[in-house]
């Protein structure tokens, strides 16, 4: 027969409760914040868990001198908030979170670029849509003053607060999902080269790029801005989203060089002519010499075993969100389809992003 030991509640000091909650708020950590109030939280007065053990070290502040922690602690220690928190930690059932702390947590999440948490917290407060608008307005103001960096930050924050009400089973923040968006963008094979996104006229390309990297709403707001402003905005946005962009641009040049080399071989077939070989043998030899899969592998920086174009595209979009804007699908033989670089040479954005080769 199993023995039953009665566990006694472990007392938890008010200072510890304040510290744990303030730390979660200052780190924009919604999971830990909710955990502090949940029915089996170690901060509850009837809990048998000891919050001072290493098991709960993640709840305790890692840096008590952090100014954002000090600010959150001050808020947590306000008498009315402290009373409310104490009451919630003593009562049975679902706790009601104090809105002041949720708001502070949301702002801290935005500061730390934890935009999923920020969107959920603003949604709880029912101010998410208006906060989005405030960030857009701030971005527009920055564009008026030609502060492109600030404008990009504001627009990026506004779009990252998007929410997908149709998500299943419950509404969720709409997270950046360039892997899927890139696939949608390249879903239809371009019947003519000019049909692909990379070879669109500069203005169309710019609009599509902003829609893809931010949202259609953000792109529409930027429509009224002069083209040079939008180009500068797009360049900053691309480099902000992808700090490794220059490494990609270098590989992009290498991939372009490979295509040019293969093109030269097509122009001068007599150089490769093999006397006495049949046409089938010549074709086979040419196919072997041209390693088409090396082109997407160069773009990505690594080969994918038996990688299809869409596998390269998904990984490329994940590593370098803007890359899918400067490539297209290309069938190179009966059963080989690859991704290859394509751009409009006189496009300003191509020049500014360092993609054009001399």
């Amino acid at each position, binding site marked *: 027969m199993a023995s039953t030991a009665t566990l006694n509640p472990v007392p938890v000091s008010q200072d510890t409760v304040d510290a744990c909650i303030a730390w979660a708020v200052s780190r924009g950590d919604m999971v830990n914040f909710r955990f502090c109030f949940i029915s089996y939280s170690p901060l509850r007065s009837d809990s048998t868990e000891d919050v001072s053990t290493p098991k709960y070290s993640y709840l305790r502040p890692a840096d008590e001198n952090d100014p954002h922690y000090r600010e959150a602690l001050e808020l947590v220690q306000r008498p009315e908030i402290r009373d409310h928190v104490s009451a919630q930690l003593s009562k049975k059932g679902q706790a009601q979170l104090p809105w002041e702390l949720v*708001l502070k947590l949301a702002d801290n999440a935005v*500061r*730390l670029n934890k935009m999923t948490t920020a969107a959920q917290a603003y949604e709880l407060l029912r101010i998410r849509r208006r906060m989005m608008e405030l960030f857009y307005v701030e971005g527009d103001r920055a564009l008026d003053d030609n502060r492109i960096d600030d404008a990009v930050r504001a627009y990026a924050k506004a779009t990252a607060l998007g929410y997908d009400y149709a998500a299943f089973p419950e509404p969720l923040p709409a997270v950046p999902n360039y892997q899927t968006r890139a696939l949608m963008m390249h879903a239809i094979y371009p019947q003519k080269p000019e049909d692909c996104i990379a070879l669109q006229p500069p203005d169309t390309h710019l609009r599509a790029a902003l829609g893809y990297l931010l949202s259609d709403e953000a792109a529409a707001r930027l429509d009224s801005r002069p083209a040079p402003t939008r180009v500068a905005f797009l360049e900053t946005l691309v480099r902000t989203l992808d700090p490794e962009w220059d490494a990609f641009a270098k590989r992009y040049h290498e991939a372009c060089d490979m295509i040019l080399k293969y093109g030269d071989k097509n122009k001068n077939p007599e150089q490769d002519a093999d006397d006495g070989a049949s046409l089938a043998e010549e074709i086979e030899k040419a196919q072997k010499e041209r390693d088409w899969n090396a082109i997407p592998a160069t773009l990505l920086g690594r080969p994918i075993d038996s990688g299809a174009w869409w596998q390269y595209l998904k990984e490329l979009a994940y590593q370098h969100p803007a890359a899918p804007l400067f490539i297209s699908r290309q069938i190179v033989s009966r059963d080989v389809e690859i991704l290859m670089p394509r751009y409009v040479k006189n496009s300003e954005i191509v020049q500014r992003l360092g993609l054009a080769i001399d």
Partner: protein
Amino acid sequence: MSDSGYINYFELLGLEAEAKPGEVRNAYKKLMKGLVGDIAQTQITPDRRDQFLLKMAQLNAGFYILRDKERRAKFAEDRARVIDLEARWREAGERGENVEALRREYDGALKHFLATYMEELILEAGRDAECVEASHWDPSHERHASRVLRHYRQRQYNEIHERLPFYEITKPVIDWDERARAAAALVASKGA
């Protein structure tokens, strides 16, 4: 008491609650004819296509539900119940009572109402012979409509929630000038 957000098919078809099946049929055919005419005269964009699809699906559902005695009675009963539960929950909340059980009951009734009358029966109506004949509804409409209706249902759910009492958090008091300053400061700060 608020009834907005809970679709009213009588209102949609411009009918009184006592309307006879014949009146339901006439109203439906007239509205559907007008809608098909509008579609023919409009340049279709993805947004407009979704709007027309939703409107057509709602008219089909209105006709499908209201022409049948049992379905009509069940619809009226479910709709009255969800409206009543919302009102009771609101009143209890204002009196400061423990409203958790009532909130759960209301939430269940709301989800049931939205799923049944703003999605399931709408799709079912699209397979009804009379609706198909009048609206030329086909499987491709249904494929698109599934997505449109899911968005529509969730949007309604969210809109209804916006006006309900706060229960997960205390009722916020937002100072929008302070929020504008906070947004400016967050944009100016370059991260952690």
